[in-house]
């Protein structure tokens, strides 16, 4: 088994809810609430879940873009949460992020060249005007854009082209780990495939490790080696990608999979879908025991009593946090 590049232990990111004139803290939004996770060198870990389940917050917490409340993040064996500002800045050379919205993630007042040069300036890489230009041209080339476009502004590009610029920016510091926060969900389907393929090629070329956040299960399946399913701040199931699709154990995963539309009318009409009742419970005051029990079709009294740990079901690599798992 390849070594873990990044490991999160008991990671919690809570946001205080303040109210009243005195802004007293009246509650905590438990966006990420005790996540244990390891990402192995060279792999792609898919992270899926509904909107608001904390998957983006988890991704940002791993890079300390939001400050976690508790836990440990071990990156190459170093605990990121213990690093000071200078140490963290050095670490940022090793990790990067690709954002969801290619229209919001590029500074509209800077040229593409300026956007790409920023990372080099911050870390003092490729000093000297000529080297910098060469590096920018190289970055543009590697993501499939013409180096002649370095002087253009982001608004002159299409969504897919902008996302390529975002990817080039992530590559600028030559990182080993990239958090891809729904990098394709804002794009057309035809462009999505291009970007996914680009990400896969870059992974091979630069030996990258990805955390790939998405809510589109079919894309995640395509790109991921392993998949983690998140519900209300917790990881409820984790396994090799193929295995998860073949035989989900957690009822939540099963319901997510049943929501994938199938491009075959006959099958689509005939298949059963699991329709969940109700909404995602409040992350301010999550249900006792298993967080999914309020919407689960297999819930039993036991589920309210205690929270099933992720290794309740453990078959090899496949783990699920459920007392009454589906049979494989």
């Amino acid at each position, binding site marked *: 088994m390849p070594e873990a590049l990044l490991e999160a232990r008991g990671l919690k990111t809570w946001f205080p809810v303040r109210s009243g004139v005195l802004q007293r803290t009246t509650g905590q939004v438990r966006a990420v609430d005790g996540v244990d996770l390891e990402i192995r060198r060279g792999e792609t870990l898919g992270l899926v879940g509904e909107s608001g389940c904390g998957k983006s917050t988890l991704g940002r917490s791993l890079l300390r*873009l939001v400050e976690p409340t508790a836990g440990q993040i071990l990156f190459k064996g170093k605990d990121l949460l213990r690093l000071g500002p200078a140490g*963290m800045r050095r670490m*940022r050379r090793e*990790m*990067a*992020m690709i*954002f*969801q*919205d290619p229209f*919001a*993630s590029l*500074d*509209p*007042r*800077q*040229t593409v060249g300026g956007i790409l040069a*920023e*990372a080099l300036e*911050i*870390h003092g890489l490729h000093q000297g005007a000529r080297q910098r230009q060469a590096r920018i041209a190289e970055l543009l080339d590697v993501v*499939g854009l*013409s180096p002649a*476009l370095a*002087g*253009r*502004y982001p*608004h*002159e*590009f299409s969504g897919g082209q902008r996302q390529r610029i975002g990817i080039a*920016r992530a590559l600028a*510091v030559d990182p080993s780990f990239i958090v891809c926060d729904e990098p394709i969900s804002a794009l057309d*389907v*035809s*462009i999505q*495939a*291009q*970007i*996914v*393929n*680009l990400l896969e090629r870059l992974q091979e070329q630069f030996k990258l490790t990805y955390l790939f956040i998405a809510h589109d299960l*079919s*894309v995640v*399946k*395509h790109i991921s080696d392993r998949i983690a399913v998140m519900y209300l701040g917790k990881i409820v199931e984790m396994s090799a990608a193929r295995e998860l*699709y*073949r035989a989900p154990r957690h009822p939540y995963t099963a319901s997510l*999979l*049943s929501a*994938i539309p*199938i*491009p*075959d009318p*006959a*099958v689509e*009409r*005939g*298949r*059963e*879908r*699991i329709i969940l009742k109700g909404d995602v419970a409040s992350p301010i005051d999550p249900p006792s025991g298993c967080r999914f029990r309020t919407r689960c079709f297999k819930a039993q009294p036991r589920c309210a009593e205690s929270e099933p740990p992720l290794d309740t079901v453990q078959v090899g690599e496949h783990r699920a946090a459920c007392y009454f798992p589906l049979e494989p």
Partner: protein
Amino acid sequence: MAEKETPAPRSLLAGDSFTKAVAAEQELRLAHADQDLVTTEIPEGGELGFWKLALLRFLRHRVATVSLAILATIAVLAIFVPILQGNLYRDQDYRNPYGAPFLFHSRQLALPAGITITVPWADHLLGTDDLGRDELARLIRGGRVSLEVGLLAMLGYIIIGGSLGAIAGYYGGFLDNLLMRFTDVIIAMPFILVVVAVTAALGGVTLQTLIMVIAFTGWYEIGRLMRAQFLFLRESEFVQAARALGASDFRIIFRHILPNSLAPIIVSATLGVSGIILLEAALGFLGYSIPYPEPSWGNMLQGFEDKLLRDQTYLVFFPSIALVVTALCINLVGDGIRDALDPRQR
């Protein structure tokens, strides 16, 4: 829902057909990308930045450009003519108070080549005031005061409001709370009373104190706008991206947030200048702007009821028209800038 010709219901995990279907969708997606390097066409158009585009759009805005030309003329006159005229604005022509405007008489002009020509000439084109001072000279010199107060007080707004708003918006939390409550206090202060108090305390008003009083009491609008911009942009994805690259607060503020927050600030500041000019006029009218003999458009309007009753209406009209035209032009230029900077028009 289920129709009769459908095959036997399958569970969602019904192995084969499900996997096949997913694979089919996958293929559909991939059909669009044999390779990832489908090179993308080069976008049309030159390499125009935001500000150049905005300038082009502004120049296409006819009303705004004409207004700007009028303002520029007023500014040039106000800056240079008083230098040429020297003390004309305070020279009193005792024999000729309340001289009517537009009184022309013939005058012989000697040209260099020994030729003399006769031209229509007015000693005081816009007449004279109660002390026989040239109204035109006073009007032009008064414009200087108005523009000076308007621009310098706005500079004060931007410095005070801009920095406090930026700090409050960027750092948030306790600092934000403190600064916003301070802003509430400033807003609650009765402006006229502050002016009266300062005048009383200093024993009179000078141009500097006037500008400072206006700047210290009026910056809150720019301040709140700046705060809102910073609050919004601080959370934007491109700032997050800069942070993920390890950018310092300094770089984030000056490279990313500030350039993106300027557009509404510029619009608000432009429109604000006309407000300040009118405010100065109101103070002058009440007698709390700069004292005589120095003219301002406001203090030239003092006692306007008497002038209207005594049929010296021109002494009211000229400063009023100057005020209205200047304020209107500034507002039209502001509107033009707003249109030029509006990202929705892109």
